[in-house]
């Protein structure tokens, strides 16, 4: 009897416990948008973010002086206008009355303050500092930024505030398209209060203050919650969704199951799931089409096989590799067609892209080049890693090369080791991907192929004095049409030497619930969620 009573009360307790915990859970948030992400969010510190998953979150919070719209056009951001006389000194008018998100880091009773030119100088200086990850975007251009980056100067000489709302950048040399370097939201504006003693440790972890359409509420390793910034300066772009929730679900299958269950509203489709969403011809399966909207966005995410020019000095062998790579097959097999074939560094869609060779695949030519080379059939090692289909690319490449008579040996290492070996120069071939951050070809070519950039990011060790000279001259060409044409010619000259075998530019397939509409994403892969609407 006693036993039964104990069991009964246990059952009741458990039931109550269940009901209690259910009621505690908030199922009723109406106007929120839940995004499933595949890895833990990094620290939201603008100068150290490097994870492609974290950028889209940070870019809801922080904004730059200028930005790209969804068509890839440059539009004003925190700077309402800018101008330059000689392409060397650039003056920006900072928008008046833009407030930072309210936060305890500001000690006034209002808990916020407006941004001024001082904040811009502070932020740009931080981006030039040695600990900054994206310093390479501006270090070569802005006067004194390189010295500050290398620890040789105390301040950045080229940054000035003319008055409270006027900011001036002086460059090393005139650069007509300098502005293209800072369209990326990587270079964003944040308050100097981030360095206050008791804020420093929490900055990016539980505190992140910018001027963007959404502000940070909480951040754990599993969840980041942002809410609408009521005081957002651009009244035309006031967010329509109250709350954004980024939920970490590492397993792709489970994340997709959660999308199907309606517990998350958006995810970027990983390649592993293409077969569950697309038919073999790349069309969306009917039953999936009913429930979801699809955004296919061209990104600057470029995949390539880098060639170490010291280890493979034979030009004909490199050309054989170039002509023997069937890029079309890779895009079909790996991405179900969701990618653009490229034969050079400048991705299509980039402001100033001029395609030289549409599809260079030519096995006959490849065989002829191989005959001219001194290649004796020794296996060439290709480094592959765990990210971005590197191994699959390697396997297809291996097969294609064996078809024309080149033996490839795959060596799998982790991504960071691959980078280490690549920079050290002891890999013959390496499969790599790069998220291009510039919006014009000139800084991109300079970064990848100028001999001053050996060993990084000129990983191939490409050194050609005539190209160096031409690229330097490219900075000075003020007319856009001429600049684009010259850039294309330089690229062609570089690609004739085949320092790298560029393969394709991946398209991102974003799947989101059809309860929402108007999802816009710009070529920097910035989600303009402030324009998203709930139906």
């Amino acid at each position, binding site marked *: 009897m006693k036993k039964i009573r104990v069991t009964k009360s246990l059952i009741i307790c458990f039931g109550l416990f269940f009901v209690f915990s259910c009621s505690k*859970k908030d199922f009723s948030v109406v106007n929120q948008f839940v995004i499933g992400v595949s890895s833990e969010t990094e620290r939201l510190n603008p100068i150290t973010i490097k994870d492609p998953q974290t950028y889209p979150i940070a870019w809801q919070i922080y904004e730059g002086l200028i930005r790209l719209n969804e068509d890839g056009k440059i539009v004003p951001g925190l700077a309402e206008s800018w101008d330059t006389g000689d392409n060397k000194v650039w003056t920006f008018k900072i928008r008046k009355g833009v407030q930072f998100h309210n936060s305890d880091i500001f000690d006034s009773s209002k808990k916020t303050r407006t941004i001024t030119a001082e904040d811009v100088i502070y932020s740009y200086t931080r981006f030039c500092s040695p600990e900054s990850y994206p310093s390479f975007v501006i270090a070569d251009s802005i006067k004194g930024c390189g010295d500050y980056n290398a*620890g040789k100067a105390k301040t950045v000489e080229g940054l000035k505030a003319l008055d409270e709302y006027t900011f001036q950048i002086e460059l090393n040399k005139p650069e007509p398209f300098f502005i293209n370097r800072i369209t990326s939201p990587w270079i964003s504006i944040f308050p100097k209060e981030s360095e206050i003693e008791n804020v420093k440790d929490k900055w990016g972890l539980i505190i992140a203050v910018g001027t963007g359409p959404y502000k940070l509420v909480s951040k754990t390793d599993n969840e980041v919650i942002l809410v609408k910034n009521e005081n957002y300066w651009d009244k035309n772009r006031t967010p329509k969704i109250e709350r954004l929730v980024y939920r*970490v679900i590492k397993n792709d299958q489970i994340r997709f199951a959660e999308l199907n269950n309606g517990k998350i509203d958006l995810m970027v489709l990983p390649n592993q799931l293409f077969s569950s969403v697309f038919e073999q011809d790349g069309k969306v399966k009917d039953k999936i089409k009913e429930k979801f909207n699809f955004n296919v966005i061209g990104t600057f995410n470029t995949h390539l096989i880098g060639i170490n020019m010291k280890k493979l000095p034979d030009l004909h062998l490199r050309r054989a590799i170039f002509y023997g790579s069937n890029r079309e097959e890779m895009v079909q097999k790996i991405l179900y067609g969701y990618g653009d074939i490229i034969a050079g560094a400048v991705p299509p869609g980039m402001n100033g892209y001029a395609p030289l060779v549409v599809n260079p695949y030519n096995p006959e030519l490849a065989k002829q080049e191989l005959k001219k080379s001194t290649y004796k059939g020794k296996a060439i090692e290709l480094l592959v890693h765990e990210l971005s289909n590197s191994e699959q690319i390697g396997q297809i490449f291996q097969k294609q090369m064996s078809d024309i008579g080149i033996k490839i040996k795959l060596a799998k290492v*982790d991504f960071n080791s691959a*980078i*280490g070996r*690549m920079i050290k120069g002891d890999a013959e071939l390496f499969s790599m991907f790069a998220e291009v951050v510039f919006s014009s070809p000139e800084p991109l070519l300079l970064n990848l192929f100028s001999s001053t950039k050996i060993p990084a990011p000129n990983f191939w060790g490409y050194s050609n004095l005539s190209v160096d000279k031409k690229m330097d001259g490219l900075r000075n060409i003020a007319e856009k049409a001429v600049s684009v044409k010259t850039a294309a010619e330089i690229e062609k000259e570089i690609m004739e030497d085949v320092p790298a075998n560029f393969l394709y530019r991946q398209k991102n397939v974003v799947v989101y619930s059809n309860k929402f509409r108007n999802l816009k994403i710009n070529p920097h892969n910035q989600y303009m969620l402030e324009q998203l609407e709930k139906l």
Partner: protein
Amino acid sequence: MRLIYYTSLLLGIILFTFILFHVIPADPARIMLGPNADESQVKIVRKELGLDNPLHLQFRNFLYKTITFDFGRSYIDGRTIYEEVLSKFKVSLFLVLLATFFIFLYSIAIVLIGVRFYPIVDKINFLFISTPTFFSGVIIAIFVFLFYPFTSFSGAIHSIADILYLLPPAFILALYPMAILARILKQEIEKINKSTFITAARAFGFSETQIRLRHSIRNALVPFIAALSNQLPMLFTGAFIIEIIFSIPGVGSLLIKSILHKDFPMLEAVVILNGLQFIGINLMFEFLYPVIDPRIRSADAH
């Protein structure tokens, strides 16, 4: 004697960890700054991290800091390692405790159901042992996410919903050890049931339940506890697959993340934490044996 043994073991772990992460040919400064950074910038950061100091100097600093529990900051995002590891450890510890709870539950059930059900138990155990966690984990996870109402975890144990979220992963984590332990327990009970003192107890007219609870279990407990002491540390390190499947930010996920990013200070702290756990669990069980078994107690006294 034991204290000297464990202290030297710990020192060995610290030394080994240090050497291991300093012979790996990877440059943490380069990893922090990415492939695009200039060599001069990388050099500055290398200096700031103290990586340009001679190895013995680095070890001296490392040892001093480790003893004072100051593991420094993560190379990757500058978080304080001590706080980071501690917060992850809390989650993992809770997960392991829940798993241990399942192990005990299952073991008690084995004892209570009696010998005639053992053929079925054998089959269940076989299933649990032979199914790898990465498989059972995903299968159960998909069902859980379909039918279980608690599918979001805040990242720490804040509410009852968080605890309920951890139940299925803890159960999967427990599958293998509980089957192993149940097998040991079952064999022991079968052996003991054949011994003369059980026959004697039966002859005295004790009921089967009384015999089971008073005599069988107590004698089967020592081998059971010994096996448990082997399985427990493995639960901590083995949790990483489960942690990744269920997106639980515990020590396991931290370990994997730090390995991939070559976050050496974090890795050193995690390895040392694992060493401490191992030593702690062993010490705990060494104190536990005499409590359970009077024979060990008297042997110690002699």
